[in-house]
């Protein structure tokens, strides 16, 4: 049970406090309700580019990183299709420095042209290094538009193409800031060796005078149901054959999310899962195979990803996965197997929540999904899943017409 208390400032900032007196540190986690799904399709990669600019100096503080180091802290950020998240971990006695730094960035950036130019080139190098210059690095750049035709999940957070980032202007950047970086579009969680009273006082002092801003209402196009299988073969310079299969599934807020997550663990994951045991250990068709779900807010994907051995044809490999999927469509899984995947889900959650930072982030995710207490309900919702539920979601998710297949053929 993760205890928390919450309050709102007059400007709309949602603040969550999680006290943990057993640690000498504190985390300040600030999650903005903006991700790459909120981008214009002709200006993709902006949410992420903007995350970089947030480190380039704010209204009153020119060098963010140095100030964090000076108080013994550590900081980082990430952008996803749904959110942009910033955090500082530091000795609890210096928590006010985190408020000072983070509130100043929300108040305003210095918007220096040279910072924009520098960060544009850094992001372009990141694009090349992580997505283009690596075997399979472009998998998600290819898989997303294959699976999504309408929803903005069709592009990756890095953006559709380098040109979008190259064309970014200072006007675009300021526009993005004033539409999305606002107290009424964010949730702040302070966790660790702090008190509610202290955080109330610091929140008022540092965030209280930041004016609310006009945030445009979110109107995203919904993805229509997929009617037939999609297939893309890539002949590129990769060391071994690789297959990705992506199936549409529900979003994290849907009641069926938990059954679908368990279904993915029945299929793949650990050494005793069905795909791994049969296709890697027994039949030696793959050297590695895994299954996972994307826990996105809007309807997401269940993904099977496997490395095919050199003596196996794609057809054989694909067929072998199909046979295991067929079993799940036609039979319910045993109580023992159900118990096994529930145990795995439960221990992963518990393990994950040992880290203070993860607790702070998960409380923020819950807040953006409309239920701060989500973190405390997850285990029970996994426990309520029945083997009939698993078969039912398997029949919705795993039929081939709902699947996009990406196949890398080694040269």
């Amino acid at each position, binding site marked *: 049970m993760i205890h928390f208390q919450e309050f709102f400032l007059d400007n709309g900032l949602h603040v969550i406090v999680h006290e*943990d007196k*057993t*640690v*000498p*540190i504190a985390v300040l986690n600030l999650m903005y309700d903006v991700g790459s799904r909120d981008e214009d399709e002709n200006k993709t990669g902006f949410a992420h580019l903007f995350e970089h600019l947030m480190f380039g100096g704010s*209204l*009153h*503080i020119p060098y963010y990183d140095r*100030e964090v*180091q*000076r*108080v*013994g*802290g*550590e900081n980082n950020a990430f952008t996803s299709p749904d959110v942009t998240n910033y955090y500082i*971990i*530091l*000795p609890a*006695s*210096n928590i*006010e*420095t985190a*408020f*000072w730094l983070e*509130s*100043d960035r929300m*108040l*305003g950036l210095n918007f220096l042209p040279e910072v924009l130019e520098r960060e544009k080139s850094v992001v372009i190098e990141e694009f090349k290094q992580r997505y283009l210059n690596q075997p399979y690095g472009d998998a998600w750049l290819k898989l997303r538009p294959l699976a999504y035709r309408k929803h903005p999940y069709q592009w990756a957070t890095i953006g559709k193409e380098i040109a979008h980032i190259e064309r970014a202007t200072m006007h675009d950047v300021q526009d993005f800031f*004033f539409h999305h970086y606002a107290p009424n579009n964010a949730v702040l969680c302070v966790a*660790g060796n702090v008190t509610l009273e202290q955080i109330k006082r610091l929140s008022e002092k540092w965030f209280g*005078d*930041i*004016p*609310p*801003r*006009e945030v445009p209402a979110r109107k995203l196009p919904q993805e229509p149901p997929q009617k037939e299988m999609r297939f893309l073969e890539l002949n590129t310079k990769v060391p071994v054959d690789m297959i990705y299969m992506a199936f549409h599934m529900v979003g994290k807020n849907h009641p069926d999310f938990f059954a679908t997550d368990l279904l993915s663990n029945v299929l793949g994951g*650990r*050494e*005793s*899962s069905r795909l791994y*045991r049969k296709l890697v*250990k027994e039949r030696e068709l793959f050297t590695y195979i895994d299954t996972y779900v994307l826990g996105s807010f809007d309807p997401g994907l269940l993904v099977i990803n496997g490395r095919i051995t050199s003596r196996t044809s794609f057809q054989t490999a694909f067929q072998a996965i199909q046979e295991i999927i067929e079993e799940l469509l036609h039979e319910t899984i045993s109580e*023992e197997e159900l*118990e*096994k995947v529930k*145990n*795995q*889900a*439960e*221990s*992963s959650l*518990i*393990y994950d*929540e*040992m*880290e*203070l930072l993860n607790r702070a982030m998960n409380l923020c995710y819950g807040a953006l999904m409309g239920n701060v207490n989500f973190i405390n309900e997850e285990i029970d919702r996994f426990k309520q899943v029945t083997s009939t539920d698993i078969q039912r979601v398997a029949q919705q998710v795993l039929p081939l017409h709902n699947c996009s297949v990406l196949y890398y053929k080694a040269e």
Partner: protein
Amino acid sequence: MSTPVSSASYRKIAPNVQPFNDFELVKPVYYYLDNRTCVWVLYSDMQPIINMQILLNAGKWHEPKQGLAPLLGKMIAEGTKQHNSQQIHEFFDSLGIFWDISTGVDQTQMNFYAMSKHFEKLLYMVAELLTEATFPPKELEQFKQKIIQQIQINKQKTNQEANLLSRECLYGNSHPYGYRLTEELVQTVQSEDLLCFYHQAICASPFHIILSGEISEKHLISLNKTIGSLSICSDTQPLVVHTKNSSHPTRIVVEKENALQTSIRVVCPLFVKKHPHQIPFGVLNEVLGGYFGSRLMKNLREKHGFTYGVHSTITFMRHEGFFSIGTDVNKEHRDAALEQIKFEIERLCQQLIPEEELTIVKNYMSGVYLKSVNTPIAIADLYKNISYHQLPDNYFDHYISHINSVTAEELLELSQKYLSGAFSEILVG
């Protein structure tokens, strides 16, 4: 609504840096099981999970012949008298237990994370792994192939090769800390060899347990019933002594035509962790090359652009310690880079470190420590270190004040004492 904001003057001034105070670690409660096994228990009811670490004196230091240790730990869970490999994996997966067993230079460590409600079931399997491993030849062959592939891949990596050469150069080929695992050595390992080593150093040998998490009385009773009932040979293990090469500083250059970079290592022997100079030397190391803002980083990366990264590190094993500086540089800059490394070492030996630089380093190190103790399992890891290096159990309680008491004059003395002699240099690529 986006009215222009007035610049509040208080925003221009950073809040005061609060002094970094010592943080007293939770102390373990000590128990002895019926067979005299010592258990350290760190209670925490934050999460319904238990971490159990079992530490055995079975490492390269103790192996009857070279090459056994690296395979020993990984093979223990590949078959017992009662269960085959698949059944053991199924057992752990079914209960959602995360686990790892590995053998290092001085120790074999078994590490398990289980939900507290499954902890008692785990104990029976652990007792089995401690006494009934069989090392099935079929599983051993598969594992040997995997290791040999890894050795072949690592051979092409200049940094791996440089690390292996550093240790060979410090300790020699016949020393457990110095020899390298080769394909030939792996090939010679037979199931019987591992079984023999297992019987000598694991089965019936004394070990030490560190438990952390949501532990109750009934867990301890079960622990005593299972692990506490294993028969442990009460004879103390024979004292093993190894002598290292009298290491003269050397220079090793391995040319690799196809390599894009040269991996440089500059190494010298150091004391063990128990030594009184360990904490101040740690501060010195941080200034030189321990963090992102270090002198070597500023010189080699930011000023000269020779490399993406350069680090200095202190490695402590139970019986030896060494200091090393490592970097991968563009081939044509290797001599210039080496020169700059020497320049930075000399600067430390000749000039006092400015106060401001020292303060940032001390704050940074204090913060790193405080952030490292934020879960019961992380605290258990610190106690594992205390056990491994045989440190007093209040070692970390004064860690921060110890760091803060270090002076620039003291560091100058330490530089002259430990860093002014000759280093061995290894260049690969």
